[in-house]
């Protein structure tokens, strides 16, 4: 187990850099502190339910089920499921990463993990409704259509570009973190 100081070294460095930034640019001080407060509140609000849900997923969904539904041999069904899982999610993209780690641990295929991340990032249903209202149906729906294609292409391209060994390493890492 790594020590506390080593794990938090980057965070402490970032905090010091932030203090230096505030001291060096008084013009941005108010805005920086304001957005720091806003983002902290947003994170504190959104994090508890996301992590509770991933804890429940971890405990209640058996590995065999996940492999059957979203594993290597799950085919189109698995991809659709990954899309739906990401699309019905709520919350910012950084909430998707720990979730993805649990899905990896449970045996979901890497391609489906990438589809899930892509769907979480762009095809979230509550956001889509909001986008339609603000920017118009044509804008939102054409963006949705092209993004669904894009998510699949990006997932395929990453899978192709990433060596098998690196994917195996990520799965081992997910096992360790989860």
């Amino acid at each position: 187990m790594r020590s506390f100081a080593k794990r938090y070294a980057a965070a402490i460095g970032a905090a010091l850099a932030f203090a230096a930034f505030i001291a060096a640019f008084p013009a941005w001080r108010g805005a920086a502190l304001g957005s720091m407060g806003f983002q902290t509140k947003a994170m504190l609000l959104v994090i508890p339910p996301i992590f509770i849900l991933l804890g429940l997923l971890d405990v209640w969904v058996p590995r065999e089920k996940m492999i059957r539904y979203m594993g290597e041999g799950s085919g189109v069904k698995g991809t659709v499921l990954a899309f739906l899982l990401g699309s019905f999610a709520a919350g910012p993209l950084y909430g998707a990463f720990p979730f993805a780690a649990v899905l990896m641990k449970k045996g979901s295929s890497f391609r489906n993990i990438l589809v899930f991340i892509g769907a979480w990032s762009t095809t979230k249903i509550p956001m889509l409704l909001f986008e339609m209202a603000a920017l118009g149906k044509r804008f939102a729906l054409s963006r949705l259509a092209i993004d669904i294609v894009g998510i699949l292409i990006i997932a395929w391209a990453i899978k192709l570009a990433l060596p098998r060994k690196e994917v195996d390493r990520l799965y081992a890492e997910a096992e360790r973190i989860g």
Partner: protein
Amino acid sequence: MDTFFLYALAALGLGASLLRDRTRTLAAVKKAWKAFEGILPQLLVVLVLVAVALAVLDTATISRFLGSGSGMLGVLGASLVGAITLIPGFVAFPAAAALLKGGAGATQIAAFVSSLMMVGVVTLPMEMKYFGRRAALLRNAFAWAFSILAAFFVGWAVSI
């Protein structure tokens, strides 16, 4: 509304879990905490990056970026700003709508919205922790390139 839905889902799941098995529910909560503590260092770094990015690139600056540039340069600029910033949709969409009404191009706005959602430069420390440096950088690079393509498609779809 987003967050409310999330809490409702978590409460429902937690309740159902408690009814079925107390010890497993406790294990789930423990796992939730462990997962959170595991990512906390990266989360704090992201927090600082977001705060600085949003201070420098405030809504007024973003609007100038999106409003001024036209053509390929405008699209590139818009997608870069979208890639760096992390703004929730309920703030970004109305701002984008106002810009659209004010005469900004649909292609530029689409480049901004797409890269805002798909690309996360400031959240890279978190993404790398789970996906490794290589996969995280690849995903963001691909997503950024794609968001530009998507922008031209949306711009075309809106114009027909």
